[in-house]
């Protein structure tokens, strides 16, 4: 062929063919894995944060229903209960609620017609617990019955346990899936490296016999796959972030289902994805390449 060749403008071409590095299928696979990993991470973060938020909110407070006993009026009983509770270790504040709060809860059942003032409607006491060492339901109960009060304490502990358990399951399966995906990505890269080395055995052999160090040759593969993985990671992360943003926009602060509230800040979690992908790929490629070069 007769293309003019300008020696002065010659620059060394990369030792590994550039087109190998642009295999769309490989990029797609790694991008999908990164996308799934990011989605998993987002899900875990959102679920975790939501669970944490609810649990925290529930942990901080308790509600006590006080029923009048003997000759005491409900209001007096409630006031006494609030006093007792305020003195318990681990309680930050206890406040008897206005009677209307209690009426609100009863009214649907009795209709507007009933004269609630005449009835012994129980009163509510709202208790705010100390953040650090909150009092338990048992402690509150003990203090109240010691003072002869007829009360029911609801510290939401059953709910909290359920939420914690669900959050734990989400966190563990999420981490498992995440790890699995990272391993799969590493395996893809290891496979691709091996395939790349097999397809370019000649390159490796020539470089080796021409006096290139093993590390130099391994670095060629390491760099290439790190770059591919970074690109794929960026694509996957962007897709995941876009999906997260869509969910957030559609579902508001609560996400598409109230169970998975996504915050704008959560989307930042995808940022390290290209880096992690590149690191995983670099390590996988280096190990694979070095092992194969050693056999020369």
């Amino acid at each position, binding site marked *: *062929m*007769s*293309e003019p*060749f300008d*020696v*002065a403008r*010659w*620059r*060394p*071409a990369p*030792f590994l*063919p550039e*087109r190998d590095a642009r295999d769309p299928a490989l990029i797609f696979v790694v991008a999908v894995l990164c996308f799934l990993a990011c989605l998993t991470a987002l899900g875990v973060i959102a679920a975790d944060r939501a669970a944490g938020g609810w649990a925290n909110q529930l942990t901080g407070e308790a509600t006590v229903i006080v029923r009048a006993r003997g000759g005491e009026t409900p209001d007096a009983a409630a006031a006494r209960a609030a006093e007792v509770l305020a003195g318990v270790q681990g309680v930050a504040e206890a406040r008897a609620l206005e009677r209307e709060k209690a009426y609100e809860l009863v009214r649907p059942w009795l209709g507007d017609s009933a004269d609630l003032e005449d009835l012994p409607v129980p009163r509510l006491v709202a208790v705010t617990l100390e953040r650090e060492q909150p009092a338990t339901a048992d402690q509150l109960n003990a203090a109240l019955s010691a003072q002869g009060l007829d009360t029911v304490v609801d510290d939401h502990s059953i709910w909290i346990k359920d939420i914690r358990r669900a959050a734990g399951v989400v966190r563990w399966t999420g981490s498992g899936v995440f790890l699995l995906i990272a391993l799969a990505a590493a395996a893809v890269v290891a496979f691709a490296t091996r395939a790349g080395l097999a397809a370019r055995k*000649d*390159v490796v*052999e*020539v*470089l080796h*016999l*021409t*006096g*290139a*160090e093993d590390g*130099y040759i391994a670095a060629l593969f390491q760099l290439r796959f790190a770059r591919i993985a970074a690109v794929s990671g960026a694509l996957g992360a962007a897709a995941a972030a876009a999906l997260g943003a869509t969910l957030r926009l559609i579902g508001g602060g609560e996400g598409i289902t109230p169970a998975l509230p996504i915050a704008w800040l959560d989307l930042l979690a995808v940022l390290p994805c290209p880096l992690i992908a590149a690191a995983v790929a670099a390590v996988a490629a280096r190990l694979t390449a070095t092992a194969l070069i050693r056999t020369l």
Partner: protein
Amino acid sequence: MSRKPNNAAAPEAADDIVRFDAVSMRYGRGPEVLSDLNFALPRGSFHFVTGPSGAGKSSLLKLIYLAAKPSAGAVHLFGEDTQRLHPSQLPKLRQRIGVVFQDLILLDHLSAFDNAALPLRIAGHKPSEYRNDVAELLAWVGLGKRMQAQPPTLAGGEKQRLAIARAVVNRPEILLADEPTGNVDQEMALRIFRLFVELNRLGTTIVIATHDQDLVARANKPVLNLEHGRITALGPQGPRPRADDE
């Protein structure tokens, strides 16, 4: 070529660039393909290695360019026992050796120019320093118009000349050529031989394995003949301290 008596621990000649001491070689657990070789190549010498197919010519060269290890005996290169060297020292030694492989092994996706420039790149030279030399060399071997072509688009003889260009571009201290003229015509074979002679005059030690009886006859250089992995004959000049000056 200086022949040594078997098993004699002769004092090393300072100017022996290659020395085989009772060297045997086998592939894996196969039979010995080289048996008990003893010889030395002085710096600046020029030798042919001949012998029938399968005699062990390529294997002998592989020992010198460090692509294979002896199963017995010692190969000395640049005055060093290659078996005693740490693997990390080998690349530097390899950079001082130029090889024309029997099956060429060119990099298919690189241009002829990039292929030829490869050893200079590996050795860490700057493109601006060497690109003119590379171009000149390629023109000299008749590839001036094919510098941008990739090896799969080259004719058989063109590939062979490219492999030769790559082997000599780095001005190696030793040049090993394994059947370098199998795919070129007589005229080109002679041209290539003259290139080797020129390099030899500039100090490169040269070893050529070949079947080309014509070339060997015409060249008037010492010959090492192998049969079944043993040295059976030495060529016209016998052992010589230095290669002749043509």
